């Protein structure tokens, strides 16, 4: 069990996170917040790249800093900026990282092709990474994080650069891995975590706003989400009069959604809240409502 115990992180005078308290058991946690909220900061503390200004992080009751290599041994980490060596092949780079992770060469040589296949890079595993696309590099990063079969898997915006098929495959991969480890992934894209996360963590105003299963999050807005269709020509009027949280096009019409405590008129239809509604409500223009 991993506990973030009343942790604050300051960069000089700048407060990045204040009094963050979290507890992780096995399962998938989606760290969902817009850019600049402090997701990377939290993750860097979880992997001991940076240290809390206040509070501490404990794994099974011990401070992770004191655990040192015994903690890092359990760690898989995909940083937001995954660095690599252009003149290395994925297979060679993973072999190098295996050595750093204390995995025997023999074991690594068996594991590496499996992992690269899992992320769909088996055809290019012996090609230099110089010409790889962003998505391919990202998948090398995902494979790398899994090398040591980590008990704690920390993925900072893992879907960045992945196309829709790759995203789907990635989500499938995570659910397969989830049963006996802690997986924390950060994203600002709702669909990345919508179907797979056991719990969603939302950071707002430097601290944790919610840590709940998706169903419970949606219940927060239950009965308060309304939807209506309008013609294009009326769209501007709508936007001015109501604090819409989202709008989309459907069959030549605009569909508007917004939050309200009561039904404004009978044209508005009450609908089930989605995670996206919650996200937009919390971080969107109507965040104060």
């Amino acid at each position: 069990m991993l506990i973030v115990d009343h942790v604050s992180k300051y960069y000089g005078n700048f407060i990045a996170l204040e009094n963050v308290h979290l507890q992780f058991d096995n399962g998938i946690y989606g760290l969902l917040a817009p850019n600049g909220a402090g997701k990377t900061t939290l993750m860097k503390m979880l992997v001991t790249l940076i240290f809390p200004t206040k509070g501490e992080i404990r794994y099974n009751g011990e401070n992770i800093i004191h655990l040192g290599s015994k903690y890092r041994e359990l760690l898989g980490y995909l940083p937001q900026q995954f660095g690599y060596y252009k003149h290395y092949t994925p297979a060679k780079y993973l072999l190098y990282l295996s050595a750093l992770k204390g995995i025997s060469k023999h074991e690594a040589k068996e594991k590496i092709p499996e992992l690269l296949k899992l992320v769909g890079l088996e055809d290019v595993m012996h090609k230099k990474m110089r010409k790889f696309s962003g998505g391919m590099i990202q998948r090398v990063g995902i494979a790398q994080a899994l090398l040591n079969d980590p008990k704690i898997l920390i993925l900072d915006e893992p879907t960045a650069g992945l196309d829709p098929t790759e995203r789907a495959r990635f989500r499938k991969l995570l659910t397969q891995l989830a049963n006996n480890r802690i997986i924390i992934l950060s994203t600002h894209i709702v669909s990345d975590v919508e179907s797979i996360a056991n719990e969603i963590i939302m950071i707002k105003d430097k601290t944790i706003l919610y840590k709940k299963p998706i169903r419970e999050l949606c219940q927060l807005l239950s009965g308060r989400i309304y939807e209506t269709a309008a013609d294009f020509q009326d769209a501007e009027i709508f936007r001015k009069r109501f604090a819409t949280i989202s709008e989309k096009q459907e069959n030549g019409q605009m569909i508007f959604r917004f939050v309200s405590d009561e039904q404004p008129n009978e044209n508005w239809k009450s609908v089930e809240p989605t995670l996206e509604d919650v996200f937009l409500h919390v971080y969107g223009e109507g965040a104060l409502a």
Partner: protein
Amino acid sequence: MIKYELIKVVKSPIFIILLLFFVALNGLIIFDHKNERENLPVLQNIVEQYGTKIDDEALAGMKKEIDHEMVWVNELNPKSGKQYQFPYEFIKGHEAFLYQHLTDRELNRLFNLNLFTQYYETAKSVDDIYSELDATEFARQQIKKYGLSGEAEETVLNQANLLEKRLQQLVKNGEHRHFFYLGSVYEMHSLLFKKLGRAIAFEGMILVVLITALLTNYEFEHRTFFVAFTSKRGRNLLWDKLAASVIANVCAVMLLIAATLIIYFSVYDYSNLLFVPISSYFNSETPFPYISWWNLSFLQYVCLFVGCLLLSQLLYMLLTFSLSIWLKNSYLVFFTFALFAGVSLWLPSVVSLNSNFILIMHVNPFYLIMNPHVWFMGNNIFTMFPYFEAVTIAAWAVIFILLGFFSMYKFKRQPLN
């Protein structure tokens, strides 16, 4: 892990290119004055015939050889009918004649004889010269030249006393009475230990700083530190880097030294001179001859010299290692290192000349390589201590090792962003 670190060095072509470039440069230095040194075999012949030790037997033999050759010389110029005893008497005033009437072969024979005579005369005068040598007087002149006074002057004069004792012992050992390439003519000691020694020291320094900075900053410059330092090995990876630095730097510096010495010794033949004491009078290039603090043969001196060169390079490695931990950027490291070296060399020039502080300021790892030709010798008043080199290296090794541990301690607690 050390293996992977070493691969990073080997895979960087810059080091091989630099190493080859430096060896070529040293080759140029070696060949540069080769023409002025084409008469070196004259000494080889002397040594082959009489051994390296100057004794009465050798002197008598040489005189006999000169007398024999002078018969031929006196026949060259029957017109004057004058009988010369030594070739230089004949050469003087006959230059035009020589070049007009003698064949190249004859000229060569004559000049070689002249050089042979020079060795003979020098050998004969050695005892007289050493009986008049005065280390204290030498120190006084140098003190005046550099303007030392007060406490510093006193210290140097005390050291001169020590040198005087060593001088007496040297004479007793007969270290000075050995044939060697004439220093006053060929300056072989300066060529090997000053020009080449200094060149190697600076080239080595460049290699060492580059290699160490590359290794230590590698993850930061490639932005792979997020993964590398969160792995099981984590920040202890830096110890592997240090070990790899030692191996890579020792290899690079030793290759540089070995290649340079191989070229040098294949161009200039020392095969019969390896056991000649380094303090031989023939080695001296200035009125005050080289005086090593111990009775060292040329070969022993070369070995100590190489050891000292190598250790000084390891000092630069330690400094670069610590600088890299703090700066995490090779360019910044080069710049700071250069600044450090510059300040170390500049500081002694602004310290007042009347206290021992001026002497202490010279105990620094950069000043050390400025005058490698007087290592282990009493010929420089600022370094006139028998263990100057050992103390400099040991003191700074301790300082840099402590700095390294401190940097490592800090690094383990440093946020890596």
